[in-house]
Each structure stands twice: as structure tokens, then as C-alpha cells.
């Protein structure tokens, strides 16, 4: 492995990070209205959002990228490989984050709702002041481990030509015929990316645990 080979792989890093952070941010945000729809008092809204979440989660990510890039992109609206991957992964992240939030919401003790009602806090304050902070706190470890999963998932974007880590590794292995070394380095990059996420999540969790553990 020469330094030039190493740099070739390194060139994929920004796109991997951009895809991961872009999809995770979009998913973490879009997951909130999706959860709201899932918990809605209106049955049709509840049903549609449930079906949507199941479909998005039920189809393999690679297939979603093919549907968006080859299906929509090639025949209806021109779309770049990166945007197709970002949209697909964001959708998947939104469905998964909505489910993570839902689990966290269910963990809130019913006494919290009763206390809010007896204080006449109202729906908005109960949501913003009472539920949301506790939901995010409970969802944090699951969200962090999902973020690591999503980061690895971005490798599927290489199949539609996004020049991220796996794509660069594949290119390099084909030009150098040294697949083992190349993919070992690529793997190392993924591991190195996941370490700060895991570390940050643990630190945040420990901090919150010390303050507000129940």
C-alpha cells in the first residue's frame, strides 16, 4: 500500500460522513412528525403512518436506492447518485427513528401524564416540557447505536455510484489487485468512525444518568 492508495480511500470519507450525518439528521427530524402521526387520535392518519413505516422498514435499503435512482431517477426526475442515496437513507432513518421515539415514549411512566393533567399543563406544554426531554433522553442510546448502523449502511450507496468509502475501496482493489489490504483499511475507517459516536453516546448517557436516573 502506498500513501497514494491510502489517500484514494480517504477521498471516500467525506461522502460517507455526509451521507451518514445527512440521513441521520433528516431521519431524527422527520421521525418526529411521523411519530406524531403514528400516535394521532385520527385513525386514518395512524393507519397510513403505520403502513408507511412498515413498508419503509420492510424493504432492503439497497432496493430503495435502486427504486429511487434507477426507478425514479432514470425515468421521471433526473437525480444524482448522492441525492438518491441521501433521500433513500433519510426515509429509512425517519421510519426507524420514529420507532425508536415510540419505544421511548412508551417508557414514560403514566404518573408523568397524570401529574401534567392535574397541574393543567395543557397538551403543548406536556409535550414540550414533559414528554420530549424524557423521550430524547431515553432514546439516546438506541439512536446512537442506530447511527452507527446507518453509517455502515451508507456503503450500499456505492452500488449506485456514490464515491464513498466502500466505492473507493472497490475501485482501488480492482486497480491494485490487493483486495485484502484495501478492504481491511476501508473496514478500519468504518471502525474509526463508529468509535467517537459510541464514546459520545456513552458519555452523554452517563452524564444524564448521574443527573436524572430513575
Amino acid at each position, binding site marked *: 500500500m502506498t500513501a497514494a492508495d491510502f489517500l484514494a480511500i480517504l477521498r471516500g470519507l467525506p461522502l460517507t460522513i455526509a451521507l451518514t450525518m445527512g440521513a441521520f439528521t433528516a431521519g431524527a427530524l422527520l421521525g418526529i412528525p411521523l411519530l406524531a402521526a403514528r400516535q394521532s387520535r385520527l385513525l386514518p392518519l395512524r393507519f397510513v403512518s403505520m403502513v408507511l413505516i412498515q413498508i419503509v422498514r420492510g424493504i432492503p435499503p439497497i432496493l430503495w436506492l435502486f427504486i429511487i435512482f434507477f426507478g425514479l431517477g432514470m425515468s421521471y426526475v433526473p437525480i444524482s447518485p448522492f441525492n438518491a442515496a441521501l433521500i433513500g437513507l433519510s426515509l429509512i432513518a425517519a421510519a426507524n427513528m420514529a420507532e425508536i421515539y415510540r419505544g421511548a415514549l412508551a417508557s414514560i411512566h403514566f404518573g408523568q401524564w397524570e401529574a401534567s393533567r392535574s397541574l393543567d399543563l395543557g397538551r403543548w406544554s406536556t409535550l414540550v416540557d414533559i414528554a420530549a426531554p*424524557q423521550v430524547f433522553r431515553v432514546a439516546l442510546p438506541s439512536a446512537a447505536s442506530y447511527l452507527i448502523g446507518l453509517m455502515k449502511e451508507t456503503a450500499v450507496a456505492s452500488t449506485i455510484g456514490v464515491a464513498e468509502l466502500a466505492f473507493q475501496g472497490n475501485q482501488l482493489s480492482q486497480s491494485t489487485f490487493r483486495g485484502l489490504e484495501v478492504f481491511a483499511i476501508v473496514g478500519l475507517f468504518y471502525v474509526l468512525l463508529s468509535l467517537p459516536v459510541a464514546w459520545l453516546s456513552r458519555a452523554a448517557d452517563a452524564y444524564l444518568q448521574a443527573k436524572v*436516573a*430513575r
Partner: protein
Amino acid sequence: MTAVQNAGPLIRLAALSKHYGTHLVLDQIDLEVVKGEVLAIIGPSGSGKSTLLRCINYLEVPDGGLITVGPTTIDATRAASRSELSGLRRRVGMVFQSFNLFPHMTVLRNVSLAQERVLGRTRRDADERSMQLLKRVGLADKAGQYPVRCSGGQQQRIAIARSLALDPEVMLFDEPTSALDPELGLEVLAVMRELAESGMTMIVVTHEMGFAENVSDTVMIMADGKIVEKGPSAQVMRNPQQERTKRFLRAVHDR
């Protein structure tokens, strides 16, 4: 308009009833509590005493009957509006068996939040009032802590302060000491006694016979969703008239 002085009871329940499926939990309960009265509700588990208490601020929705607190009357046979519920809940404070403090907020924030959101007080005014109340329950030094750092007895006293912060006209206590060991229960009872002496109208569901006998003005025994006996506390506790009351009190004293 001239304000009409309400000479009647502060709280009036008329023919209040509640079913869980086919099980009758509250059977046509009629009850009046005057301003400043401290009413203890005692009785065996499953007699409906907690449900009755929780109906008064509509945490449980009764099937029928009328609930009047001050100028607000709710007819349980039809759906209550948001403003009716607000009218009720702003007059009624509630303290729970399991405290139900908000774990992600400091003690001070727990007491101040509803003052800002419900009464529209500024943060500064709310915090000032909260500190007064925390001092009153003996916990001013805990203001900056999170609830998890407080003992059960302290958490319950904070919950009382949180409820008092909205200036309720009546306070409901749902077995406030049942989750506490005897010593911690005592510090909560001391706060409740002080509250009673200050003239607060209180309805207390409890298994603390000492409180029922010595602090409350009136004691009411419930069994099977009905009021068995109600009267001045000394009379009911020392000279009960109903066989069911005698049996319950004997079981308590023989322990």
C-alpha cells in the same frame, strides 16, 4: 355584576357513579366538603376511595353525577370541555402516592413550571414563589437538585409544594405516605398537618389512622363503592356506628 358569596360547600358531589366494565366502583356517591374542612377517606382496598378522589379532578372520568368545585360544575353524563376541565383542575391540587415529580427537571423547576405555563407568571416571580413554598416544606436547600437525589419523603414534600404553587382551593392526597417508610411518612404528615392548620381544604385518602383521628375534621369510611359512615373524626374513629366500620377499625387496631 355583584359577586354572590358562595355560602354553600366548596365541593359537592351528587350521585357520582363509575363502572369498570360491569364492576361498580362508585355507587351514587353524594358528598359535601366545606371550605377549610379536612376530610379523611379510609376503608379497605378496592372500596373506591382512590377512584372517588381521582374523579374530583377528572383524572378518572365518572359515568354519571355532578361535580362542583367552587363556581365550576361538571355534569359527568356529557363530555367535559377543555375549559371546564381547566376550571376544575386549577382549583384542585393533587398529590400522588408515587410523587410523580418530573425527573428531568430540578426541584425548583418542578415547582415553577406550571406557575409559568398555567398562571403566566414570569420565571422570576415563579421561582420566588417556589422558594417560599420549598422553605415552607423544609427543602429550600434542595432547589438546585434533581428529584433522584431526594428521599421519598423529600420528593413527596416537593410534590406538595409543586401543587400548592398554583394556589389551589382544595388539595387532594391519594395515599401520600403509602410508598414511604414510617419515618419518611412522618415528615410528609407533618407538612400536611401544617397545611391543615393553615386552613387549606383537604381530602385525604389514607391508611394513616393517626392522621384521620387527630388531624382531619371529618372521617369517611368507604366500602364497595359506597359511603358506609361519615362524621366528625373523633366520633367515627372512637365510636363508630356501622358494623362495617367497626370491623375495618378492629382490623386496623389488631395489627
